[in-house]
């Protein structure tokens, strides 16, 4: 019989919420903010063009409806900017001996813990803005997690590479 029933010793186990979370790169919240602002500029530009080019739209936007639409658009982008900035600011991560932890979410606080032994592959991705600021995203894939991949955004490139190296070395040591 291979059945075992080892006693749980909750007090002696390492606690995941005792890990000290590191903030992401200081530039990352600003990059997120910049992305929202770029999107806002595109939308406002499109609106401006529409006003110039299409007279019925001009009537609509400069008329009484505009009193609701324009502040609405500004408010929406204001909220999105705040949300993007705050979200980026609350992201924290920790690298432990056997796993990685990432925390995110303003209204819904979420901690995901990924044991290194279960990682199938590691990916470093960089968008155009990330390149500009020397940032990178570290993505970890494990079996069955599907779209719920583990991602630490806004890391300095060399740091992301070092964490990746740590994961690969761990796995070489394990096998």
């Amino acid at each position, binding site marked *: *019989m*291979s*059945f*075992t*029933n*080892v006693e*749980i010793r*909750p007090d002696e*186990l*390492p*606690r*995941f*919420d005792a890990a000290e979370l590191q903030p992401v790169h200081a530039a990352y919240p600003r990059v997120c903010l910049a992305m929202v602002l770029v999107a806002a500029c595109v939308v406002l530009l499109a609106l401006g063009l529409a006003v110039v080019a299409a007279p019925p739209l001009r009537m609509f936007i400069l008329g009484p409806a505009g009193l609701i639409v324009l502040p609405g658009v500004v408010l929406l982008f204001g909220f999105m900017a705040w949300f993007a900035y705050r979200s980026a600011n609350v992201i924290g991560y920790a690298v432990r001996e*056997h*796993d990685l932890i990432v925390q995110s*979410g303003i*209204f*819904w*606080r*979420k*901690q*995901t*813990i*990924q*044991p290194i*032994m*279960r990682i*199938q*592959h590691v990916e470093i991705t960089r968008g155009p803005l990330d390149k500009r600021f020397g940032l990178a995203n570290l993505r970890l*894939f*494990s*079996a*069955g*997690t*599907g779209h*719920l991949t*583990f991602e630490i955004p806004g890391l300095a490139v060399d740091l992301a590479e070092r964490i990746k190296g740590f994961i690969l070395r761990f796995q070489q040591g*394990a*096998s």
Partner: protein
Amino acid sequence: MNEAAPAPVPGELWARLSPWSILHFAARGVAQNLQMAYWLIPAMLGASMINLAAFAWYVPGLMILLVIGSAILSYRMFSYRLLENSVQVRQGVLVRKQLDLPVERIQNVNIEDPFYFRPMGLLTIRIDGAGSSSDEVYLGALTRQQAESIRNDIIIRKRRLAADGNGTEANGTAGMDPVASAGEQPFFSRSLADLVVYGLTNNRAFLIIGGGFAFLSQTPLSLENIFRSMGVDVGAYLAAQSVTRLAVMSVIAVVTALVLLAMLSILASIATNFGFRMYRSGDSFTLRRGLFTRHETHVRKSRIQSVHYSQAWLDFLVGRRDVIFEQISHAAPGAVAQRTSRTVVPAVALRDTAALMNGILPGVDVDHLAFTPISRRYFHKHAIIVTLLYLLGGIVTLVLDLTMLQLLLPLLWPFHLVLIHMRWKRAGLAVHGDHVVARSGAIGISYRIVPAWKIQQVRHLQSLLMKRRGLSNIRLQTAASAISVPYLDTSFAKAVIDHCLYRVESTRRSWM
């Protein structure tokens, strides 16, 4: 290996299948084109309506010719060979494809016994590769001797490969037993009565038939038109009857329909699961079932990621549950495999669960585990949301003056609240040695059992409000499925997470 076999003696030479395999290709062609047939019916109806009735029958005729033609061509163009380290297949009529399936990526070699090969006593082999379904290889129309020799060959090669270094793969491949039929011990079976219960409790025919009627009523094939074509004017007939008579007739009609649907579902259950037998051999088990097409499935115990006890409300009334073994086909290094395969053992009596599980995953008796309940606030939250929805619905029915719904909503509301209450009462989580068990369900009680060391990722989630109340949702992800439990006490949830992480990280046990 066997002199009677003309082709599939493993070796360097490309081998062809027997001409009988045309049947196999035709069957697969039909299966793949069923989607098209679904569109064909309305097309035919359309054609028949616009005075092209004579032409309408060319379409299925053409389809049949196409299927036969492509099956013959597929057979002509298909060849395969077994090399030391891989199985290679050349196929494709218009586009030639060569598939190279490395032996170490082969997960399962299944022998199938389809009904169209039954008279000739021929078999089909299905070789499952890693991940996607494009990695599947079918070899049709083999004799039993050929099929078994191919299977044993692949398994022996797999073992040899595992023995040559590569220690991590070694414990992963030992499970496929080349002489499975010799060392097998029967340990669990399902009788015809069990299959009838399964057909009744898992009545999925409702959905299919319901959808079918909805579709037919849109076409000239609606019941009314059929009756009319038989010279019966349904509308005039009904108008001539009294109200009580109409009521009795409609009740009889509904009951008849339900009985017919139940019969259909039972027949489907018997067709797929007839002669359901499970055999133990070493660290794997074999399952044989099927009336028309005999299925033979090998499952390695180590590949099982979680076990799901599913219980529909009818199952609950008759004291049964379906036991579902959830596996992952394979995760090749560097690729993220996503295919989950499920092996269902139908309609297991609660007291027989232990007999089944002892052969596979011993030591977990969910019926006598102490579960940690979830917070009463779960009930409060959902009761409030549902009540608000009912109020909204009530206002809508008042405004639109829908008398029937006005009467129905106050009756449904308490029933709905009772269901939420039961759902809250049943939800719970238990940690038992190496296993984590979640309980859920409203009427039927479902369980999901996960060996803690097979967990891939864990997640802790709480809203601001939940944080203030000390409540947490947790999600324990395995390669095949996940356990999610809401509204647990935060300190308990965190202790469970720490325990699971410890189980994963302190042992070197493979999850495969």
